[in-house]
């Protein structure tokens, strides 16, 4: 029973150790921040709804819905901040109520070079590997589709529609949007080629190379290839349908999956635009792990309420019950000592103790 719980905790411990060894310090934040701070950056949040309350000094405060914003606030110009966090955040859930979500993540902010970006991407891959041997990381560079859209000459609203189609792998509606906007077939086909791009990194790079000849495009393909080549080929897929919030994200974006978990368990990317919006210079890259989704994966439902239930006879001296429970729990089993077996309790094993402290069955 306790083994599965320990597994989750062990995985979290392994991740912390991984980040620490790479020079990332744990960032601890307050439970509350001024509401105004989140209100200014509400578009970055998963939801605009946050839990607010008036503090004793009259200030409107919010229960933290996000950690990244607070980490950015603590970054200094001219330096590189490497931080990881393991915090509960409070957000609306799909059931329409607020929920407490355990989140772990990592951010690298400041005067970053290409190595820093690669380091975070590689830590994302290693994080997935630490969680499960059967994982996949989808990597995209938003620049390619954005640039291909720019080159069609469509307006911003049409561009948003095209990005929405890309996010859904929706080729049929993408064709319809292109047709309605008067995009020529040749340019529409380039958008389709990105949407339908082969996930194999080598094949994807070859497709990318064939789309546009100009130097800027080819240089970006080469840079993308350099990042991909340093990641484990069998586990990394190119997928341009990874489209994060483009107001904040730019460049590389990625999503991680573990076999058996029906949603992505990791999401991240470069968010230089967010930094700029918060008045900071430099670049930023990071990712979040959705531990609530991972926990469900590592913690299958228990078939039993207890490993061992120890039923002791009336008047058994407490020290004898304690000694028997300790003996039964030596192999790591959880032992629940009770005077009688409750009707609804489902135990893997039931053991009875007589009043002399002897196990009778």
């Amino acid at each position, binding site marked *: 029973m306790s083994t599965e719980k320990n597994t989750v905790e062990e995985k979290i411990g392994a991740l912390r150790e991984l980040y620490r060894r790479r020079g990332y310090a744990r960032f601890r934040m307050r439970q509350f921040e001024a509401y105004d701070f989140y209100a200014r950056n509400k578009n970055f949040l998963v939801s605009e709804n946050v839990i607010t309350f008036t503090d004793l000094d009259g200030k409107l405060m919010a229960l933290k819905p996000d950690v990244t914003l607070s980490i950015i606030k603590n970054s200094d110009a001219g330096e590189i901040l490497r931080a990881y966090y393991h915090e509960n955040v409070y957000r609306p859930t799909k059931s329409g109520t607020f929920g407490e979500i355990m989140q772990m993540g990592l951010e690298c902010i400041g005067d970053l070079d290409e190595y820093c970006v690669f380091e975070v991407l590689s830590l994302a891959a290693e994080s997935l590997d630490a969680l499960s041997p059967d994982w996949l990381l989808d990597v995209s560079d938003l620049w390619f589709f954005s640039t291909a859209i720019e080159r069609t000459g469509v307006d911003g609203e049409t561009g948003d529609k095209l990005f929405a189609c890309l996010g859904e*792998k929706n080729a049929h509606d993408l064709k319809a949007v292109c047709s309605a906007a008067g995009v020529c077939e040749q340019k529409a086909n380039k958008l389709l080629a990105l949407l339908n791009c082969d996930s194999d990194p080598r094949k994807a790079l070859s497709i990318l190379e064939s789309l546009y000849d100009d130097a800027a495009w080819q240089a970006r393909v080469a840079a993308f290839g350099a990042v991909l080549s340093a990641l484990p080929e069998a586990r990394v897929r190119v997928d341009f349908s990874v489209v994060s919030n483009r107001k904040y994200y730019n460049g590389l974006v990625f999503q991680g999956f573990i076999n058996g978990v029906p949603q992505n368990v990791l999401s991240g990317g470069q968010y230089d635009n967010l930094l700029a919006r918060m008045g900071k210079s430099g670049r930023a890259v990071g990712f979040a792990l959705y531990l609530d989704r991972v926990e469900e994966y590592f913690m299958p439902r228990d078939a039993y309420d207890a490993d061992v239930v120890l039923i002791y006879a009336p008047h058994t001296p407490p020290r004898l019950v304690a000694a028997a429970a300790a003996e039964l729990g030596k192999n790591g089993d959880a032992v629940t000592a009770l005077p009688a077996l409750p009707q609804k309790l489902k135990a893997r094993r039931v053991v009875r103790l007589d009043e002399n402290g002897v196990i009778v069955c």
Partner: protein
Amino acid sequence: MLNIALPKGRLGEKVYAMFEAAGFACPAIRENNRKLVFENEETGVRYFWVKPSDVAIYVERGAADVGVAGKDILLEYRPDVYELLDLGTGVCRMAVAAPRDFRDDPRRVLRVATKFPHIAADYYAGRGRQIDVIRLNGSIELAPILGLSDVIVDIVETGTTLRENDLAVVCDIVPISARLIANKAAYQFKNEPITRLQAALAAGKETT
């Protein structure tokens, strides 16, 4: 094993025939009984019959790897899934309809009765029109007849129900048809059967 959620009813039966022709047959599904789950190990498929509006939820949450849902459901509930193919069946349209003598008075807030509040809100937001959405669960056509609403936003197939109730289409919002959707994680780990299914259905669509 590929888990497939199909919408119960006529559309589901039509869609199953397309899947069968695409090489994903499961003969047990044609047996006349009350079972909800059907499996064929040979073709590696397991089908479920679910309420049409629930297909997207089954797929989004991973209970099904792929499914077939109407575009109306996808637009209304916006599930986080891939929309891989327009199956070209179950074709109809989402439209605004009103009594024949309806005249839109822009000075007034437009009262809109619908089963699809998101679609209605999005449509009128795009036109900058202020509306009062009245969410109903059925017999939408009754709302303007009884003065509950000015217009309705609903699915129109043949238009017979509208005509019989002295209503007429004011404008079309979006064409609707059945779409093949996939769970995002299943698409990663069951990529081969899912893309094979997508390609076979697309090929089958072209030949019909």
